[in-house]
C-alpha cells in the first residue's frame, strides 16, 4: 500500500506541479528601495523551510529570537520546518518551488536551480537587504562569496562559517609509520600503509554521497584553482583535460590503495563518524560543525589525546595556497520575494542583529567579524586550534561540486564516483561518461 501511495503521490505531485507552475512572483525587491517595503508591520505567522539539525544552534537561537520578537509584536510566530537530511530537503524545496508554495524563508545553496529562481525574481536580493540593515560589511568576504552565484550576485544569507579539515588519529599514524601528508599525491601511499597496519585509512560517509564528491574537487582546486569547476559545469572544461585526468586518477588511486572501507558506499554519517571516534579509522574529513564531537570531552577518552587535524594538502605547482580549502558558510537562507513585506524585513533585521552574538557565545563559528567565538568549558586544545585556523583561511574558496553542477550531472557524478573508488569502472570510462553527461545536461541550466 505504501508503494502504491508513493507511486500515486509521485504521479499526482508531478502532474499537480505542472498545473501550479508558471506564475512567478511579481516585483523583485532587488534594489535598496525594494528591500525597504513601506507600510505598517502587521504581525502574523511566517515560516522558514530549513535543512538544519532540529537541536542545532541555528534552530535553537532562531526560536529564542522569534519568541523575543513575538513579545513586542503579538501575533508573530516563526514556524521552523526542518528537514536535516539534505537530499530529502532539496526534493521538498524544489517541489514547493515548482508549485509556487515556498514559505517566507527557505534554505538553499547557490545551486543552478536556485539561480533560476533568483533570475525569475522569486528571491530577495540578499546583498541589498544586508546593506539596507547595515550588516553587509560585517560579514567575512569568504562567507558571502560562498553564497554567491557565478555572476557575483548574492541571494542567500549565511548563518555559519565552517572550514573543513582532515581530522586524524596520531596513534594510528604512528602505528603505521606514516606522517601527515604534505602533498595530496602522498595520500594514496599513506592509505596503503595504514591499511597494511590493519586500520581503515579514511572514514567516509558514502551513503550521503557529498563526502566522496569532495575528493574529486581537491586536485582541480590545487592545480587550476576555483575557476575550474565553473568551467566544468558548463562543459567549457572537460574531465578529459590534464587537470580532470589528474583528479580522476587520484580518486581511483585512493580507491585502489584501500583508502575507504569496503562497504563505504552503504556507510552512513553516524557510522562513519563512529568509525573515526572509536579509533578504527585514521582520517576523517569533516567541517567544524563537528567541533563539539571531535574537540571536546564528548570525544571518548580512549582517542581524545590522539586526535589532531591538518588542512587540505597542496600539490606541486599548486595555484592555491595552503590556507585555502573548502570553507563553507553552510546552506544559506533565501527570502521569498512574493511574501516579503515590512514584517519579514523587520524580523530579519532583529534576528540578524542578535543571532551571531548569541551563536558565538554558544561556541559556534560565525560568518561575521567582530564577534569572538567562546570556547566551551569542556573543549580540548584542538577547539582553539580550529578557531585559529578558521581565522586564517585565505581568499580563494574550494566550492563543493554538489552545489555547482546541474542536478542531473551531479547525481550521475555521485554514482560514478562510487564505482570509480570501488574499481568497478576505469578512469577512461568515468571520464567519457561524465563529460558526455555534463555536455548533455549543462545547457538546460547554464544556457
Amino acid at each position: 500500500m505504501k508503494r502504491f501511495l508513493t507511486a500515486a503521490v509521485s504521479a499526482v505531485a508531478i502532474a499537480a506541479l505542472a498545473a501550479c507552475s508558471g506564475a512567478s512572483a511579481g516585483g523583485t525587491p532587488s534594489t535598496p528601495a525594494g528591500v525597504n517595503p513601506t507600510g505598517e508591520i502587521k504581525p502574523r505567522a511566517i515560516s522558514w523551510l530549513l535543512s538544519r539539525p532540529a537541536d542545532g544552534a541555528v534552530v535553537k537561537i532562531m526560536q529564542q529570537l522569534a519568541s523575543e520578537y513575538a513579545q513586542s509584536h503579538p501575533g508573530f510566530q516563526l514556524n521552523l520546518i526542518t528537514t536535516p537530511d539534505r537530499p530529502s530537503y532539496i526534493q521538498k524545496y524544489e517541489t514547493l518551488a515548482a508549485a509556487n508554495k515556498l514559505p517566507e524563508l527557505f534554505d538553499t545553496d547557490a545551486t543552478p536551480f536556485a539561480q533560476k529562481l533568483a533570475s525569475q525574481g522569486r528571491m530577495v536580493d540578499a546583498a541589498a537587504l544586508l546593506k539596507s540593515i547595515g550588516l553587509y560589511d560585517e560579514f567575512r568576504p569568504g562567507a558571502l562569496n560562498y553564497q554567491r552565484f557565478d555572476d557575483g550576485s548574492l541571494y542567500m544569507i549565511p548563518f555559519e562559517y565552517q572550514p573543513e579539515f582532515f581530522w586524524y588519529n596520531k596513534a594510528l599514524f604512528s602505528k603505521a609509520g606514516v606522517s601527515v601528508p604534505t602533498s595530496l599525491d602522498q595520500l594514496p601511499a599513506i592509505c596503503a600503509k595504514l591499511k597494511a597496519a590493519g586500520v581503515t585509512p579514511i572514514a567516509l560517509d558514502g551513503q550521503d554521497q557529498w563526502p566522496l564528491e569532495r575528493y574529486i574537487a581537491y586536485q582541480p582546486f590545487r592545480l587550476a584553482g576555483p575557476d575550474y569547476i565553473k568551467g566544468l559545469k558548463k562543459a567549457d572544461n572537460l574531465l578529459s583535460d590534464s587537470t580532470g585526468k589528474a583528479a580522476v586518477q587520484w580518486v581511483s588511486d585512493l580507491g585502489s590503495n584501500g583508502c575507504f572501507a569496503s562497504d563505504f558506499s552503504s556507510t552512513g554519517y553516524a557510522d562513519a563518524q563512529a568509525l573515526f571516534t572509536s579509533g578504527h579509522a585514521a582520517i576523517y574529513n569533516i567541517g567544524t560543525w563537528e567541533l563539539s564531537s571531535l574537540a571536546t570531552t564528548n570525544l571518548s577518552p580512549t582517542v581524545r589525546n590522539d586526535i589532531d587535524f591538518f588542512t587540505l594538502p597542496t600539490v606541486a605547482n599548486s595555484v592555491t595556497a595552503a590556507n585555502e580549502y573548502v570553507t563553507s558558510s553552510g546552506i544559506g537562507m533565501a527570502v521569498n520575494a512574493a511574501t516579503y513585506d515590512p514584517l519579514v524585513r523587520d524580523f530579519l533585521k532583529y534576528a540578524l542583529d542578535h543571532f551571531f552574538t548569541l551563536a558565538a557565545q554558544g561556541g559556534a563559528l560565525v560568518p561575521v567579524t567582530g564577534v569572538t567565538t567562546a570556547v566551551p568549558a569542556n573543549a580540548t586544545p584542538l577547539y582553539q586550534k580550529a578557531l585559529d585556523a578558521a581565522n586564517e583561511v585565505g581568499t580563494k574558496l574550494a566550492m563543493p561540486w554538489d552545489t555547482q553542477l546541474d542536478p542531473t550531472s551531479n547525481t550521475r557524478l555521485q554514482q560514478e564516483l562510487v564505482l570509480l573508488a570501488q574499481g568497478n569502472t576505469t578512469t577512461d570510462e568515468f571520464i567519457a561518461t561524465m563529460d558526455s553527461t555534463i555536455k548533455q545536461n549543462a545547457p538546460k541550466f547554464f544556457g
Partner: protein
Amino acid sequence: MLPSRSRLSVLVFLLPPLLIYGIAVLLPILQSLFLSFFSWDGTTSPTFVGTANYVRLLVGDDIFWQAFTNTLIYVAISLVIQIGGALLVANLLFTLTRGHAVVKTLYLLPAVISTVAIAFLFQRIYSVQPEGLLNQLLHGVGLGQLQQPWLSNVRTVLAAVSIPEGWRFTGLYMLILHAALLAVPTELEEAARLDGASRWRVFTAIRFPYIRPVWITTLIMAVTYDLRGFDIPYLLTNGGPGQSSELLTTYMYKTAFTSTDYGYASSISVFIVVECLVAVALIFLLLRRRDQS
C-alpha cells in the same frame, strides 16, 4: 437479470467508489501522460516536445534500460521468495498439529513493520564494520571467505535489496494461500491418498488446481506490487553503487525530484503503468494457454 430497483441500488453503491478511483488513480495517470509530452523543469513554463521524451527513454538513456533490467531481476527474486516461500509455508502449516496462529502471526509480522525499520534492520544484517549478522554467520560456519559488503558489491547488491522485499510480504501471501488451502475438500485428498497418491501428487493434482484462482490473484498482486517496488531499495542503497540497484521507480523519483525533469519523469511513470498492465496481461495469457493445452 436484476430488477430495475436492484440495478439502481448497485449503481448507487458502485458509482462513488468508481468516481474516487477515477479522480485518485486514472486522472493522475492521464495527467502524467499529458505531461510526458512536455519538457518542464518546474520553474519555467512547460515546453511541448512531442514524443522526444519517449525517444530518449527508448534509445537514448542507458540508465533507463539498466533500471528496467534491474527491475525485472528484482521482481523475479522477490516473487520466488514471496510466492514460492508463501506456498511452501502455507503447505507446511498443515503438518503442524498446534501453534498455527503463533506461526502465522510471526510470519505476518514483517508486513506490518515500518519500511524504514526494515531497511535499517537489513543495513545492520549486511554490514561489514561492525560485522553484521550475515557476515557473522558466514564466519561462524567456516565460510569466512564469502564475507563481503553485500550492499556495496555491484554483484550482490540487487539480490541484497530484493531479499528484504520478498521476506517482508511472504507472510501476507502465505496467509492468503493458507486460507485457500483450508477450503480444499479433505475427502478428495483422503480418497487420493487411499489410492496411493504421494504428498507431491496430492499437491499437484488436487490442492494446487483447487487454489489456482486464488494463486493467480496472489501472483498478480505480488507482480504489480514488486514492479512498483521503491522504498526498500531507495532507503538501503538509493539505487547504488552506481546504478547497480536502480529500479525504474527510484530512477523516476530522482528524475522528477532531484533532476527536476518532470516531463521525462512522467514518461517513465507512464512506462511503469504500461509495464504493470503488460505483466498482468502476460500472466493471464500464459495461464489461459496452459489451460487450453
